[in-house]
């Protein structure tokens, strides 16, 4: 399935296979889940939310070093 992922100003389409969650996606992108808030199709979701084909994911960094 294809998912649109936006991190800050960078937007990309990623292809993933099998049943995956937001947590899996963040891990694959090496983003620390404890530093971000994630929106799926404009709504805030929790880490264990399942991804579906065509989803639009926005990763908002809320914690910066220091």
């Amino acid at each position, binding site marked *: 399935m294809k998912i649109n992922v936006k991190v800050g100003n960078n937007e990309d389409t990623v292809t993933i296979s099998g049943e995956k969650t937001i947590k899996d996606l963040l891990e694959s992108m090496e983003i*620390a889940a*404890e*530093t971000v*808030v994630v*929106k799926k199709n404009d*709504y*805030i*979701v*929790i*880490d*264990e939310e399942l991804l579906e084909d065509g989803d639009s994911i926005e990763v*908002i*960094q*809320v*914690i*910066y*070093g*220091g």
Partner: protein
Amino acid sequence: MNECDKCGSPDIIIKKKQSGQKLCSNCFIESTKKKVLKDIRRQNLIEKGDKVLLGLSGGKDSVMLLDILSTLKNRGIIDLVAVTIDEGIEGYREEGVELAIKNAEKYGVEHRVVSFKQYFGTTLDKIIQNNSLEVRRNACTYCGVFRRWIFNRVSKEVGATKIATGHNLDDETQSIVMSYLEGNIQNLTRIGPKSQSKSDKFTVKIKPLREIPEKEIGLYVIAKELDVHFAGCPYAGESFRAEIGTILKQLTVNHPTIMYSTLRGFDRIKPVLKKEFATESVFEVCEICGEPSAARLCKACSFLKQWENQD
């Protein structure tokens, strides 16, 4: 089944690792606000009639605090004035100042923007660029000293009885661990929700968000669609605090209650620390600026004097 523990909504935005509690957006916002107001009452941080100076950087912590303190202002419990300090950090501070102005206006709160330039004739960028002292400290040390000086000075200029800052649970546990690891026991005796200086020349400082995890503050401002400045200070990465912050965040992945237990344990041991180690500083006024100081010169004037001599 993932549904809100309070209202049953299936649209939850948080599942708290430390308690397992699941909340939807509205219930999360309400319960967080309630928790902060309860902490303010329990710890007696604010009294009716206080004039509170809020340090408003435009970042998530201070804007969330503005959102909550403005409810006390609207109920006629406190008077509120927001103060934004422009330290002079090019490419970073401008957006924060702009958002601070916007938010103060939105909440109808009196607002002042003050700067290092205005009070000290220089900027943090220049201080770091030109500093050739033998013992050079990192930017956060200078910034902290000058910010505290300005907040105390401005609090007296506006007649504030309290200075409120947006320090959160992560900040506070970092301070505890840092002070302990550095063996700075004097510093440990001063950490807490409310400053307790015997000198009336220091305006009392309060930290109403001290028990709220930083991630939940980020979630609050996004859930409430508040306009905040999300960016890291370019100088923060070089600090010991940043190193400790990274270690603590890493630890919370497998030990979600670690920051709470660090804080709780510290709060229990603090009376003993104070009894054993707190020193009674004799406060005079700084010979140069007139601000309270335990030495002939306050830290801010002492730094300025050293730089004057290096030129």
